[in-house]
C-alpha cells in the first residue's frame, strides 16, 4: 500500500509509465491503434455501415420492393432545404406530361408543387429488427401522392428508389461477409491450430491442402457450385448456401495466420513455463496462447472481410448468387451491367460507391489492427 502511495507521489510521467506498464493487452492494442488516424476513421465508417445495416428499414425512404412504372429511371433529385418561409426541407412533386415524339408519359419534377419532408415521420410498414412492427422512418414526405418520393440517388427501371434499396442491401451484403468470415474463422482456427500444434505429418497434409485450394481459380468453381443450387430454394436457404460456398474457400488465409502464431507461441517461455507447471494442453491453448493471438486473428479477419464481400457481390452480379427479391449490392449492380442502360441512367453505378467505401475502410482498418496487434513490437 505504502509503495503505491510512494510511486504516485513521484512525478506524473512515471505515473503514466506505470499505467502503461500495467495496462492489459487490449488497452495497449487500443492505444497503438488510436495512433493510426486512417484506421480510426475507417473504424468509424465501418461502424456507421453496420448501424445502417441494423436500421436499414428505418433509414429507407420508400419500400425497396415497391415498383411503380411511372417513376422509372428518375434521376437523382436534390432536397431543397429552404423555401420562402425559411428552413423547410422539401422536394418537388412529379408531373406527368406526354412526350409528343414517342407518345409516352414522362414524369418530371414540377417546381410549383412542393412536398415537405418530416423527420421521424410515418412511411411504409416494416418490422424493426425483424420484430417490432412500426412505420416510423428517419424522414418521409408529408401527404405525398403515390407517384411522389424522395429520390436521393434516383430510381431503377421499375421505379424503385435506389437509396432505399442500397440501405436495405447493406444488411445482406455486410452480414453475409460476417457470416462467411465467422465460418472461415472456425475452419481456419481449427485446421490452422491443429496444423500448428501437432506439426509433423498432419501439418504437411493441411499445408498441402491449403496450397491446393489456393491454386484453383475460385470464381469458376463458385459459379459451378452456386449454379447447381435448386431454383426452388428460398432466399434464406440460398443465403446460407452462398455463405458456405464463400467460406469453404476463404478459410485458408486465416488458417495460415493461426498456424503461424501457434508456431511462434509454442516456443515462448510462458508456454513452456505453463507446460512445466503441469497445465493441460487445452488450458495452455485457451488461457495462455489464445489471448496473445486474438488481436492477430481480428486483424486477419478484418482483412478477409472485404474479399468475402467482393465474392458475394461478384456472384450476385453474375446472377448466380442471391436472387431477387433479395437485395444485395451485387444484385443492385446487376442492373448496371449494360452500357446502354448506364448511358441513360448513370446513377445506377452509384451502387458501387458503398462497395468501394466499405472495402477501402476494411482494408485500412485491417492495416491499423495488424500494426496494433503487436503492441510490444
Amino acid at each position, binding site marked *: 500500500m505504502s509503495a503505491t502511495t510512494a510511486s504516485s507521489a513521484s512525478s506524473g510521467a512515471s505515473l503514466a509509465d506505470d499505467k502503461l506498464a500495467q495496462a492489459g493487452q487490449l488497452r495497449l492494442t487500443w492505444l497503438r491503434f488510436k495512433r493510426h488516424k486512417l484506421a480510426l476513421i475507417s473504424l468509424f465508417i465501418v461502424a456507421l455501415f453496420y448501424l445502417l445495416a441494423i436500421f436499414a428499414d428505418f433509414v429507407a425512404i420508400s419500400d425497396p420492393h415497391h415498383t411503380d412504372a411511372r417513376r422509372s429511371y428518375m434521376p437523382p433529385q436534390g432536397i431543397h432545404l429552404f423555401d420562402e418561409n425559411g428552413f423547410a426541407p422539401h422536394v418537388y412533386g412529379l408531373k406527368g406530361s406526354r412526350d409528343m415524339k414517342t407518345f409516352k408519359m414522362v414524369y418530371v419534377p414540377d417546381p410549383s408543387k412542393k412536398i415537405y419532408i418530416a423527420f421521424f415521420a410515418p412511411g411504409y410498414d416494416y418490422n424493426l429488427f425483424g420484430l417490432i412492427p412500426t412505420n416510423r422512418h428517419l424522414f418521409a414526405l408529408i401527404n405525398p401522392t403515390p407517384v411522389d418520393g424522395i429520390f436521393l440517388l434516383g430510381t431503377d427501371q421499375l421505379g424503385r428508389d435506389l437509396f432505399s434499396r442500397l440501405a436495405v442491401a447493406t444488411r445482406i451484403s455486410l452480414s453475409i461477409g460476417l457470416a462467411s468470415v465467422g465460418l472461415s474463422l472456425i475452419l481456419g482456427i481449427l485446421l490452422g491450430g491443429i496444423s500448428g500444434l501437432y506439426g509433423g505429418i498432419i501439418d504437411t497434409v493441411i499445408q498441402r491442402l491449403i496450397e491446393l485450394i489456393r491454386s*484453383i481459380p475460385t470464381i469458376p*468453381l463458385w459459379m459451378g*457450385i452456386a449454379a447447381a443450387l435448386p431454383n426452388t430454394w428460398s432466399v434464406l436457404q440460398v443465403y446460407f448456401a452462398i455463405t458456405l460456398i464463400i467460406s469453404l474457400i476463404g478459410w485458408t488465409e486465416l488458417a495460415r495466420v493461426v498456424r503461424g502464431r501457434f508456431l511462434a507461441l509454442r516456443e515462448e517461455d510462458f508456454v513452456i513455463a505453463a507446460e512445466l507447471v503441469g497445465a493441460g494442453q487445452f488450458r495452455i491453448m485457451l488461457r495462455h496462447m489464445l489471448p496473445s493471438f486474438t488481436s492477430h486473428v481480428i486483424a486477419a479477419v478484418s482483412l478477409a472481410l472485404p474479399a468475402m464481400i467482393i465474392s458475394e457481390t461478384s456472384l450476385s452480379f453474375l446472377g*448466380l448468387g442471391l436472387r431477387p427479391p433479395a437485395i444485395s449490392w451485387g444484385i443492385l449492380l446487376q442492373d448496371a451491367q449494360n452500357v446502354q442502360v448506364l*448511358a441513360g441512367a448513370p446513377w445506377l453505378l452509384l451502387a458501387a460507391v458503398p462497395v468501394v467505401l466499405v472495402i477501402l475502410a476494411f*482494408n485500412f482498418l485491417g492495416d491499423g489492427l495488424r500494426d496494433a496487434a503487436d503492441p510490444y513490437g
Partner: protein
Amino acid sequence: MLMYIGRRLVLAVFTCLAISVLTFIIIRLPPGDFVDAYIANLASTGSSITAEQAESMRHEYGLDRPVVIQYALWLGRIVEGDFGVSMMWRRPVTEVIGDRLWLTMVVSFAALFLTWTLALPIGIYSAVRQYSFGDYFFTMLGFLGLAVPNFLLALILMYLGFRYLGLSVGGLFSADYAQAPWSLAKVWDLTKHLPLPACVLALAGTAHQIRIMRANLLDELRKPYVITARAKGIPERRVILKYPVRAALNPFASSIAYIFPYLVSGSIIVSLVLGLPTVGPLLLQALVAQDMFLAGTIVLLLGVMTVVGTLISDLLLMWIEPRLRITGR
C-alpha cells in the same frame, strides 16, 4: 533444385486430380443424370426415346454403376480427349469452346506479365523515394486498386469510354476480325485490344504486390549492410539493386505465384462485363442452362491450365530467386 521441381510437379498433379473430382461433383450436382437431361431436351423439340433406349444409354455411359466407377470412366474419357457433348449447342464440347480457352489464357498471361513488370519497379521506386509525390500517388492508386473489384472497374471504364469518348471499349477483336481465321493481322488486332482488359485485371494484383515489395524493401534498406555498402562508395543504383532488392524479392516472389489463379478467376467476370470472347460468358451461359458437360469441361480445363500456368510462373521464379534453387523450398 530438382527436389523443388519434383515437389511442384507432384503438387500440380494432385491439384489437377482434386479439380477433376470437384468438376465431377459439379457435373453431377443438378438433380437427374445426363440421360434425364437428354430426354428432357429431346422432349422440348418434340421427339422422344423409349425407356429401353434410355436404359441402354445409361448402361453405355456407365450411369447405372457406382459413383466411383462413373468418375473413373468419366476421367478415362477425358484423358482420351472426349469431353462429351454440349446439350445447348448439340456439338462436341471441345468444338464449342474452340479458341476461347486460349484467349482466356492470353488475357490472363498478359495481366500476369503486366503485374510482374509494373509491381517490381514501382515497388522499388516507392521504397527508395519513400514519402515522395510518386510514392503517395502509387499508394493511393494501390488502395484504389485493392478496393475496386475488377468487374466494377471494367464497368466504370466502359461507361466512361462510352459517355466521353463515344466508343465501345469491349471485345478483343475489331468487327472485321472477329470471325476471320487466324492471321498475322488478326494477332496484331488482338494485341491492340489486349491492354485494356489486361490492365483492368492486373490492377488489384499489382496494387497488392507493390505494397508487399515496398514494405519488404523498406525493411531491408534500414539494415546496416546497406550503410556499409554506401560507405564503401558503391554507386547508389548498384547498392540498391544488387543487395536489398534481391533480399526483398523473396516474399514478393512467393506471393506472386498465387496471382495466376486469381487472375484467371477475375478474367471470367471481367470478360462478361467487357464482352471478351473468352470462356467466361460461355461458362455463365452453360451454367444457367445447366449444360453441365460444357460447364464442367470449362471449369476442369481452366483449373488444369491454371495449374500449368502457376507451375510455369514458379519455374520462372526459381530463375530469379537463387534461394529457391539452393534450399529447394
